[in-house]
């Protein structure tokens, strides 16, 4: 399993008028192999840009991003991205969507079928295998997107607010599913979200970004508490009522609120 390292990463965009706009400034961050790191921050703090650079969809203006020690210059089969609005191919069935990455790698028909069947079962999508995405609910669509990314067996999963477009109910279910999935198939995960509760529930560590320019504000360690209280094996509503959970959530809220309040 590979780690992700951001070394002095900065990103500057040039606006149409020619003015430079600093989106991210001097980010140093390492996501350890098999670690689940969530990134929270106010809008405009460059969360998504951070993820796109790890995916190889954007290039840093300063510093470098390394995955498994190798400098990222473009997308690669060791990293898969789950997008906020699912980004499923509307003209492909569920089965064809999940098989897409494997086909790109030139996997044999037999291997594709085995992998697709496995993820259909794992995500509870058996009945939807031959439907088109437009015939599925949002939650189902995001399951397909997760399956599509897991199917190429990447070392690193990059998730860009994957549950942001779902309703509250579905969202909770998906959060539990993701915990279950990451227990069964641990990956190195970089998870972008604006929901503090989600970050605390899912992550080993939560990174708080400050904005204008986007920079590292603080890193909050959740892992020890999660392990000590066995969060991963308990239902989500139970975890969210634990004093330790509410304490961590409040701490993160405060950090974020300080960002948003003017003059800070």
């Amino acid at each position: 399993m590979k780690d992700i390292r951001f070394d002095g990463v900065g990103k500057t965009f040039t606006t149409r008028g020619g003015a430079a706009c600093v989106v991210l400034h001097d980010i140093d961050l390492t996501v350890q192999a098999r670690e689940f790191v969530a990134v929270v921050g106010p809008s405009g703090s460059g969360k998504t840009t951070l993820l796109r650079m790890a995916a190889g969809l954007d290039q840093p203006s300063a510093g470098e991003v390394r995955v498994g020690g190798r400098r990222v210059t473009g997308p690669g089969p060791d990293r898969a991205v789950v997008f906020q609005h699912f980004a499923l191919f509307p003209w492909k069935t569920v089965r064809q969507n999940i098989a897409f990455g494997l086909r790109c790698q030139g996997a044999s028909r037999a291997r594709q079928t085995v992998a697709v069947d496995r993820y259909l079962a794992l995500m509870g999508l058996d009945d939807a295998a031959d439907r088109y995405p437009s015939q599925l609910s949002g939650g189902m669509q995001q399951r397909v997107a997760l399956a599509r990314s897991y199917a190429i067996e990447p070392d690193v999963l990059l998730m860009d607010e994957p549950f942001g477009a779902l309703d509250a109910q579905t969202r909770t279910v998906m959060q539990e599913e993701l915990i279950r999935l990451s227990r069964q198939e641990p990956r190195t995960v970089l998870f972008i979200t604006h929901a503090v509760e989600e970050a605390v529930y899912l992550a080993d560590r939560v990174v708080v970004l400050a904005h204008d320019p986007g920079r590292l504000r603080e890193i909050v360690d959740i892992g020890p508490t999660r392990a000590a209280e066995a969060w991963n094996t308990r239902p989500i509503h139970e975890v969210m009522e634990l004093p330790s959970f509410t304490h961590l959530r409040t701490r993160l809220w405060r950090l974020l609120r300080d960002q948003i309040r003017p003059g800070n």
Partner: protein
Amino acid sequence: MLVVLGLWWTLTSGCGLIDPNRFPDPAETWAALQQILTPGYAGGTLVQQAWASTRLVLLGFAVAVTTGVPLGALMGLSRRAESLLNPAFLLLRPIPPLAWIPLAVVWLGLGDGAKILVIWIAAFVPCVINTWTGVRGADLTLVAAARVHGADPVRVLLEVILPGALPMIFTGLRLSLQACWTTLVAAELVGTLYGLGRVLDSAYRDVNPAMILVAMVTVGLLGAATTRLIAALERGLTPWQV
């Protein structure tokens, strides 16, 4: 249908409100249809004339699609191709397709070539413009999703950009086919032995309004039928669309 027929009869032969020399009554039109069906008119039966025209339309359409769709895709994919070709389009588009007839005849003579060229000119533009728009409007998130799951540029084009542009491309095909039919008659005026344009021209010279009506309705029906075919093809090729 019956109401239209009844109204038609009443206005023409019924109360004589419309002069039969200006607009034919149902009986005359029926006779004209019989005439062109069995002995034929202007050198051929209706089936022969209709097939001659349909053949030209299909050939012109095929050339327009096979040239227009790839060119539109190229313009949608490459800024360079777009900035190179767009000025030419701006210049050529205001010229009516019929204005090309003299040049087409000078270049290709009086055979099918000139007619196909004129039909192609009319049908080519909607193919290019709509494919171009469809390809340019590709969903960039889907392109990114394909890339991060390992797709090379060819696969991105074939499995993401083109399927996404397909509804727009089909809009182009429909408009293009209509343009084929509307320029057909004019193209046949270039000089032809067979075709519905020939029938119209002869009927005009013979002052035979009934035959003009038969030819016009035939063009309309054939145009509608071929448009239906395109729609069926679209439904078959885009099963994900509800």
